């Protein structure tokens, strides 16, 4: 039974990475901008965060460094896409390619580095409950914060005026502009927020999830996070659920390997990617379902006065 508790704990841990990144991407997609650079931002944030922890010894500083790296990269992306009207797909792709190269380049000195021993996080009393304790209450604080953030985001997007403005910018930038909202700056804010959250997710990978630096260690999680916003039809609660589901699939491969399932390990490693493809196909099967939920101006540039 204990192994199931550990599987749940690991699932939450892996799901948190995807959830943070995907909620961030949700914010900028709600404002009408798709940033395909998630993978690149996460990679650069992973090395920035890791390097920062190596030098300062502080996890918090590491997370902040990751968020800063993500924000700066998203800022460059936003400037190109929003003010210079470049193609969102191509620019995001450029960000991912650049991020992969730059993180490998910057990280070369840190490949063998170690960071201080991770201490365990246990909530007093709750952590001692049999089964539920090890499964739910021995996680890094960010795991709980992510759930809280998702709840806050739902409230923000659907219950506040600012949330409404953000969504209107993604649904109909022309109307928002006509009402006097600064569409481009709102989009920029959303893009930078998305970058900061992707950065946090990247830093979480290299500081908590697997505390080390390896070239390309994000291993497609940025792309899966992008796919998650579509799976979730742009709803924060479903993003959270989807993230845990995919965290579970990622962890399942290790669990199955541990159980001695007679399948070559490569086929188990394929699982998260194959699952992404399968779920994407199933969810997208009904184009109307997607179209109803998708922010109407997603991917489309907006330049006032043109």
């Amino acid at each position, binding site marked *: 039974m204990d192994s199931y508790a550990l599987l749940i704990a690991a699932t939450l841990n892996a799901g948190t990475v995807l959830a943070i990144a995907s909620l961030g991407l949700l914010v900028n997609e709600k404002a009408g901008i798709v940033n395909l650079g998630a993978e690149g931002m996460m990679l650069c944030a992973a090395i920035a965060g890791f390097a920062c922890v190596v030098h300062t010894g502080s996890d918090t500083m590491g997370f902040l460094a990751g968020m800063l790296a993500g924000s700066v990269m998203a800022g460059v992306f936003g400037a190109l896409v929003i003010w210079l009207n470049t193609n969102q797909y191509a620019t995001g792709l450029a960000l991912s390619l*650049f991020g992969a190269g730059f993180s490998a380049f910057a990280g070369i000195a840190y490949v063998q580095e170690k960071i201080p021993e991770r201490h365990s996080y246990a909530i007093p009393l709750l952590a001692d409950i049999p089964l539920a304790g090890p499964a739910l209450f021995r996680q890094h604080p960010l795991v709980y914060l992510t759930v809280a953030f998702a709840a806050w985001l739902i409230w923000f997007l659907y219950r506040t005026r600012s949330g409404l403005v953000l969504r209107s910018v993604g649904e109909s930038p022309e109307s928002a502009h006509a009402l006097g909202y600064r569409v481009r700056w709102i989009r920029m804010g959303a893009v930078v927020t998305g970058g900061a959250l992707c950065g946090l997710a990247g830093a979480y990978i290299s500081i908590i999830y697997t505390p080390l630096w390896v070239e390309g260690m994000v291993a497609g999680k940025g792309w899966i996070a992008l796919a998650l916003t*579509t799976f979730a039809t742009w709803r924060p609660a479903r993003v959270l659920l989807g993230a845990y589901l995919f965290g579970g699939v990622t962890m399942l491969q290790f669990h199955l390997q541990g159980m001695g399932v007679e399948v070559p390990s490569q086929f188990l490693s394929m699982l998260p990617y194959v699952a*992404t493809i399968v779920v994407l196909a199933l969810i997208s099967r009904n184009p109307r379902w*997607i179209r109803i939920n998708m922010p109407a101006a997603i991917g489309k540039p907006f330049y006032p006065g043109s």
Partner: protein
Amino acid sequence: MARLKLEARPEPSALWSYASPLLALMCTVVIGVILFAMLGKDPVRGLQVFFWEPIKSGYAVGELLVKATPLLLIALGLAVCFRSNVWNIGAEGQYVLGAIAASGVALMADAGSSRWLVLAILLAGMAGGMFWAGITALLRDRFNANEILVSLMLVYVAIQVLGYVVYGPWKDPAGYNFPQTKTFDAVTRIPRLFDASRVSIGLVLALAGVAGVWVFLFRTRAGFAQQVGGLAPAASRYAGFSSRRTLWTALLVSGGMAGLAGALEVAGPIGQLTPYVPAGYGFAAIIVAFVGRLHPVGMVFSAILMSMFYIGGELAQSRLGLPKSLTGVFQGLLLFSLLGCDTLVNYRLHWVRPGQTGGGNK
């Protein structure tokens, strides 16, 4: 306060569509010089390593062309895709599958095999790439699944498939347990053009591809339909062009080209299937395609440029003690600069002083 404003041009500037890649290259070089200086290396030496050493001898030029060949082949296919507004970014996976399929044929060879086996290897490579791209096309066509995400996810799957065959069924029993197949029989080697260089018939195929894609895009009705679908989907529907046909053509052509590149690599310079077959050509080719303006001839130049980045990165490692990943940094920078500079193709920049036009523009 005066500020810069974009003003849409009545039509795209022909001048800037040629000048923008050059300006982007200049930006990249300037950033590169700053980067070298910051790393405490002589920038002149750095530039030499990237732009002079790869062309200073006949052999060096040969190596440049060896690396440019797969880049050009893949980029040609991607250009057909991007012009049709089909965002295939999984060429790396299609390349890997091409290499695996080609290896399957190459491993069957023995000393008695005919030299014509090379043709079968190349066809198998193309089929492998087409099959992999076909999955993306099928899921897009039948299930409306986003081709960007599907094709990219399939890259990771392809790399695992490669891992499976080289660690499992195809591992060389006499290979000291290294995860690689046996070295392919000499009869399977892609014929070389010259004795003194590694340049193979792959280069000829790539140049034939340039001509082929040019004719297809600019001289055939099918190629025209393909691009109308990309530029103006509504007009394309009205004209009765099938969007499904566009999708399948784009993906099968680019998958086939990427698979061919994989076959040429694995049966050419590499000579066996190893986990190091995926070298990022599939991703670099995206940059080649954009920098070459999605034009077959333009991509010849951008493929050579990108190949310079690859060789320069390797030389920077051996000569200057810099990490090889510098290549990736410059590739990313080049695409970034290009996208920024491309704004000048469609827009004019001008300064607006307060009180002038553009009021209400926030």
